[in-house]
């Protein structure tokens, strides 16, 4: 690059220099000198663009519904207009999100705060974790203790932790044989063993800057702030970011926008959390879970009662004796009595019913014995008398020494288990980080917000980590995020859980909504193919009116995104948001189908090979589009199709789709240049870059 510049004629170079200087001068005259003033101006301009964009969008979409559907091909017209509606709603949500970003300035540090740094690892190489742990020990905040949370329980990792003076935490023995809940379980386990007031969570590869705590801890001066999230950036992006890992728009304007609505996300790493908030979340979660179980237990017993009418008279009588207890239990629950009281009412009644059954069983035996005695059996007569005399005591002894279980009175064991208040299926009762989803971070943040906690996105880059270095790993990571997000959407829908403000609900919904784009993007990539092969248009006419309604909206929309991104590179992200449509479809379908999802630890090492087999749908679309374009041209030339406008529009559209999909095709066969080497930025290592012998 430098070489080619020096070959330019002197004059052109000088001209370019003048032009640049002139532009800078003009900008400095036009833009207010104060950063705050500039920010305000930028926001105002954004709002004007956004309102204009919305107006044009509405102008277009209303016309699409009312005047331009091809009524003779509704099978084609309706899917396309639905896709366009999806995109328009997406734009509305985006504009709402970006409407009032806060102007954050880091407050002075919260003196005396104690901070635990958690470096979470499962199977990463020791040398990689060492880089992070060492950097963590160089964090300048005085009251900091670093812990390595090693879910792999590896002796080498322990030795390394000791060498660096870090704490080393593995799962306590309570976890044996219980669900481990991946990273969320790892952190929950450590929370019960360390005692800093604040927790900085770092993924194994996220190397923190020394000032990370100093810069963020001040936000906790506000006692309502539960967490401060900082961006996730990567130091190993190959030139041009072939896999689209870089997310500057998300870890910048988007999170700032969400922060403006008090809904900054917790993204799993590079965030500081308030222990008290996490523990409170875990405790209320525990109580809710217990209460749910008691309710479920009561309902189950009630159902058993309704169902078991036809059983033996003895069982029926015993079950009936439970009725008053159940009514009393429901009432106690309503009155807010301790759950144990509720549980004990029912459990005592069940025990009494079991005794009644045992007593009547024994009475029946005694009856039989008496019959035998009447036939002359001496011993039988004695035993029968003995039993009849001490029936209640015997029944109690029998039920106590050999518990018959709830089945004896016709109850399902699950109901009694629910009433036991043990949470026996979990290793630790208090789960601070949500464990029901493979994206535990999003679910946790939403629950914290629902409890009324506040959050902060601090936009300064204070850590650098590793992005996937091959398409296979990158796709796996994206699939996990998508699946986890949709899982949260279904299990804890932001519109249904209590305690969120409406804008907060929208912020969570906006992110979830975007993962449904796969279906609509499929329609977008198929449309030009269908038209070029069949000449059936989805719109009533490729008219001039169509052009002047759509084109200004499209252009302004693109401009708005560029404006929001303000110099950040978002092109690769744009390409991937279209090109990943099969992955998003797969995510939605797999979650809806109830597939069991596994937390996948993102691979931090390059897997060699090509990945064309992972992008077959995209390859097929590219191939079909190319074919359709050629066919469209050919049929136009030979005169089968005389629709100039339609053919041109769709050839252009098809080319656009191919350009968008080309990124992922290139990524599938990508090999980084031999000279390229990933190195963390120098500012993370104020005293020089560490060099270790890689003896592991």
């Amino acid at each position, binding site marked *: 690059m430098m070489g080619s510049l020096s070959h330019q004629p002197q004059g052109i170079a000088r001209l370019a220099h003048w032009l640049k200087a002139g532009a800078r001068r003009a900008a400095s005259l036009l833009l207010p000198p104060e950063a705050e003033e500039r920010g305000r101006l930028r926001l105002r301009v954004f709002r004007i663009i956004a309102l204009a964009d919305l107006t044009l969008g509405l102008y277009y979409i209303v016309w699409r519904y009312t005047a331009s559907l091809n009524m003779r091909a509704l099978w084609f017209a309706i899917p396309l207009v639905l896709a366009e509606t999806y995109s328009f709603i997406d734009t509305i949500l985006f504009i709402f999100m970006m409407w009032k970003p806060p102007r954050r300035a880091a407050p002075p540090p919260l003196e005396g705060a104690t901070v635990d740094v958690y470096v979470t690892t499962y199977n990463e190489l020791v040398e990689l974790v060492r880089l992070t742990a060492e950097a963590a020990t160089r964090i300048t905040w005085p009251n900091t203790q670093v812990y390595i949370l090693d879910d792999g329980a590896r002796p080498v990792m322990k030795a390394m932790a000791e060498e660096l003076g870090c704490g080393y935490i593995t799962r306590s023995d309570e976890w044996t044989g219980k669900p481990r809940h991946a990273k969320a379980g790892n952190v929950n386990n450590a929370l*019960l063993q360390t005692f800093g007031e604040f927790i900085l969570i770092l993924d194994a590869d996220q190397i923190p800057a020394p000032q990370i705590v100093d810069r963020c801890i001040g936000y906790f001066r506000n006692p309502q702030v539960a967490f401060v999230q900082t961006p996730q950036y990567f130091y190993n992006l190959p030139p041009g970011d072939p896999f689209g890992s870089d997310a500057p728009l998300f870890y910048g304007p988007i999170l700032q926008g969400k922060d403006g609505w008090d809904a900054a996300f917790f993204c799993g790493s590079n965030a500081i959390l308030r222990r*008290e908030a996490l*523990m409170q979340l*875990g405790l209320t979660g525990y109580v*809710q879970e217990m209460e749910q179980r008691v309710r479920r237990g009561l309902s189950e017993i009630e159902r058993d009662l309704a169902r078991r009418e036809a059983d033996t008279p003895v069982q029926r009588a015993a079950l009936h004796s439970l009725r008053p207890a159940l009514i009393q239990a429901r009432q106690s629950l309503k009155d807010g009595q301790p759950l*144990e009281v509720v549980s004990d009412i029912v459990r005592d009644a069940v025990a009494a019913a079991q005794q009644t059954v045992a007593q009547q069983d024994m009475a029946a035996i005694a009856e039989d014995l008496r019959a035998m005695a009447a036939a002359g059996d001496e011993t039988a007569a004695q035993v029968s008398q003995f039993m009849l005399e001490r029936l209640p005591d015997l029944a109690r002894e029998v039920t106590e020494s050999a518990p018959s279980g709830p089945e004896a009175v016709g109850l399902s064991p699950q109901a009694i288990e629910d009433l036991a208040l043990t949470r026996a299926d979990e290793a630790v009762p*208090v789960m601070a980080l949500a464990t029901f989803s493979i994206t535990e971070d999003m679910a946790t943040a939403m629950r914290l917000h629902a409890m009324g906690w506040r959050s902060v996105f601090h936009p300064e880059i204070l850590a650098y980590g590793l992005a996937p270095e091959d398409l296979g790993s990158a796709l796996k990571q994206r699939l996990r995020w998508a699946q986890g997000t949709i899982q949260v959407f279904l299990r804890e829908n932001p519109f249904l859980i209590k305690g969120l403000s409406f804008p907060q609900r929208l912020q969570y919904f906006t992110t979830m909504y975007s993962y449904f784009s796969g279906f609509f993007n499929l329609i977008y990539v198929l449309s030009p193919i269908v038209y070029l092969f069949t000449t059936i248009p989805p719109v009533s006419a490729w008219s001039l009116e169509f052009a002047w309604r759509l084109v200004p909206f499209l252009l302004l929309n693109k401009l708005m995104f560029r404006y929001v991104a303000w110099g950040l590179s978002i092109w690769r992200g744009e390409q991937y948001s279209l090109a990943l449509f099969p992955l998003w479809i797969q995510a939605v379908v797999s979650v809806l189908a109830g597939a069991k999802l596994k937390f996948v630890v993102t691979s931090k090492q390059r897997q060699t090979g090509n990945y064309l087999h992972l992008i077959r749908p995209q390859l097929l679309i590219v191939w079909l589009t190319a074919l359709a374009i050629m066919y469209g041209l050919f049929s136009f030339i030979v005169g089968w199709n005389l629709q100039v406008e339609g053919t041109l529009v769709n050839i252009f559209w098809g080319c656009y789709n191919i350009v968008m999909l080309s990124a992922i095709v290139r990524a599938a066969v990508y090999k980084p240049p031999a000279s390229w080497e990933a190195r963390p930025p120098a500012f993370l290592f104020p005293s020089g870059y560490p060099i270790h012998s890689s003896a592991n």
Partner: protein
Amino acid sequence: MDLQITEKLLSDKRAVVTLSGRVNAVTAPDLKAQLKRLAKGGHIQLVIDLTDVPFIDSSGLAALVSGFKAAREAGGTIKLAGLNEQTRTVFTLTMLDRVFESYPDTGAAIDTLAFG
């Protein structure tokens, strides 16, 4: 101020655990370990006396919950005694008053324990 934990065994199953000091993230692991040890030794009918506990945070509560879980799994329970205004507030705030029964003093709490 450190947390002092003293236990008085009433029988093979019943015991009173008296806490004195602040129950927070620093002292919670000790409390949790102590409660687990008692449950392992068969003392599963416990009264925890919080009269001399001026402050308890949610990490302290989590330790109590861990103990409660261990006791319940063995068929026992934990009752609380002597909550003051601060400690009562955190129990209410976290809704843990729905889980733990509490009594004004240890005597009243012991009376509600099952015999054994």
